[in-house]
């Protein structure tokens, strides 16, 4: 296996999704509620991974703008479940030092009286390793 293939295997393992199955139909992008916020679109995650453009993926904002709403996962006809690839990207970035999207110091400034715990916990889990 080439190094690229090994990296893709690693992402396949971690996400449980096979980017090669993508047929570039765009249904995920069509379903994504956060589309307007994303610089790299859901349907592009599979092709970026296959081409090995990992840097661009890691620098992108898209992974943090994903709502984890599972619409793309539910509707993908090829069972690629792009949301899993997005989450894998999130994890890769978060697990590398300093890659978190949310720092603990930020939290007090974001708190509000009626903020439910669920919001804080979910955000912490998704935005950090």
């Amino acid at each position, binding site marked *: 296996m080439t190094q690229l293939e090994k990296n893709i295997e690693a992402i396949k393992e971690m996400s449980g999704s096979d980017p090669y199955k993508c047929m570039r139909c765009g249904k995920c*992008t*069509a379903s994504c509620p956060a*589309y307007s916020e994303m610089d790299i679109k859901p349907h592009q995650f599979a092709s970026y991974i296959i081409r090995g453009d990992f840097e661009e993926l890691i620098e992108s904002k898209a992974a943090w703008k994903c709502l984890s709403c599972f*619409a793309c996962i539910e*509707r993908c006809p*090829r069972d690629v479940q792009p949301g899993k690839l997005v989450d894998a990207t999130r994890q890769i970035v978060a697990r590398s030092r300093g890659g978190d999207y949310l720092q603990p110091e930020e939290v007090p400034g974001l708190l509000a009286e009626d903020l439910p715990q669920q919001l804080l916990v979910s955000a912490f889990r998704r935005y950090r390793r």
Partner: protein
Amino acid sequence: MQKIGVFVCHCGTNIAATVDVKKVVELVRYEPGVVFADDYMYMCSEAGQEKIIEAIKEYGLTGLVICSCSPRMHEKTFRACAEKAGLNPYMVEVANIREQCSWIHKDKEEATKKAVILARAAIAKVNLNAPLKEGESPVTKRALVIGGGIAGIQTALDIADAGYEVDIVEKEPSIGGRMSQFDKTFPTLDCASCILTPKMVEVNQHPNITLYTYSEVEKVSGYVGNFDVDIRKKARSIIFDKCTGCGECMTKCPLGKIGNIPSEFDRGLKNRPAIYMPFAQAVPAVPVIDRENCTYFKTGKCGVCSKLCPSKAIDYEQQDEIVTVKYGAIVVATGFDIINLDKFGEYAYNESPDVITSIELERLMNAAGPTGGHLERMSDHKQPKDIVFIQCVGSRCDSEEKGKPYCSKVCCMYTAKHAMLIKDHWPDTNITVFYIDVRTPGKNFDEFYRRAVEQYHVNYIKGQVGKVKPQPDGSLLVQAADLLDGKQINMKADMVVLAAAIEPNPGVRKIATMLTASIDNNNFLTEAHAKLRPVESPTAGIFLSGMAQGPKDIPETVSQAGAAAVKVIGLLAKDSLKTNPCTAQCDTLLCNGCSTCANVCPYGAITYDDVQVMDHGLRETRRVAQVNNALCQGCGACTSACPSGAMDLQGFSNRQITTEVDAICR
């Protein structure tokens, strides 16, 4: 002692790359019985076969072992070759060192060892082979076509025109199938009915064709050349010969006005009465009473049709009738339908009446359809100004519960056709097609699609639709992706048309089981060889025509129908067929009449008779097993089940199998 010749084939690199064929030759040269061993690049070729024939003549060979591909490929070839050289064809054994060896192993040493073992086993067997003579079985010169759509109709016409008798069994009240529901056909834009109805009439009037409509095949037994088929003629409740097709009953049926029985032919877009003909050009032009919904059959009241029929043709007491007919060949032409869209709730098909399937659109655009050919929204009957077509709904889908993995082949073309026809009639309509790819593989097909874009300005957008959202004002909002321009689009539409995946007619599994014809996971009937034998089932005597075998359009269906007809004619033209001589045989001296064999035989080939037996000087009458060689398929179930060893299989006797095992275990 036999004089066996062993030939090891290279099969190009298919075998030779993984098996050291020269070594195999060396190692089997000295096996008991072997007088000659050689290898060659392609044993099945003319040159290869010449080598075999020469060796038979030169060395006086009495048996052959060919180490090559699967016997399913070339056993016939090598048997014929032996026969040409004057050797009984059943003195030939094939050792499969390709599918069972070189194609599944990577290690050359291991594969070569295994090839030698397989060769040894075959040699051991041939040592015990006895010459066998094929039997003969008669051929009933009549064909059965299951399914009366364009595939079935064309096949039947071709067979009938060649002078053979053909029966068509169609489960709907009329023949015509899906094509009768279409409006126009691509790429010529012929009116479907105009080109189909003449064929339907021809079928009805042809002296060699018998039509069984509103009928189903219930039971099939027998074998190629001699099938016995039970056909259930469902009760139409109409006396066929009396009915003139005047249509009084249909117009007067009260459920036609006040009832809510959806018309299957009009895909539920309109209702029909309980006594009905599916469409005006139905063949035969005799109605049918839908007993499940008819008031008379449900409550005993009404009976209007019977009172009004001028020909007194209505018979409420009519029963289903079962006829048994003999056939030499059976063609399966059961056709298709589109998948159920319940798993595609994102397109709001069940929610909004303005989201329709392509077949429903065909009915709407058809001049004989529920709206008289006027394209209108089913919600408010207004003409749609903005129409969106969504391709690949349920096709190319990897998730089994939702859709089908294959491409349905016809949708790209028929959507282009729909778009152009609509634009032609109503040029102000805005049409958008959301596609993944546009597939136009036929003659003049791509030019057809380009006309839609360049001449008719249909807007083709590469991208799929995520959701169809019904809006409070009755319109639809389509949320989709434009991948080439990199946008998410929210487009207003008055009507959305879904190109749903096709699937084989659901009843086909039952039929395939009855015929013991192979069927794949997608319910398409499997062909004997995907490239070289596309219209025959691996089961002898069963042929395939139309969508039942795989997605295809009308030109391909008609081609395939002709091909299937030719194969049938080739079969029926024979007066008798050679039967497999490798059948079971009962040694009456050992048989104790226990009936075990008869109970396990799947073909009903074994009966028990009282027979005179001479046993060690004692003459007795005993009840022993008798095998019908024509029915026996040589499966060997009886041979393994027989407790006394009386039953043995010619060509695969117990001794032969044991000697093969011994050779392998040596």
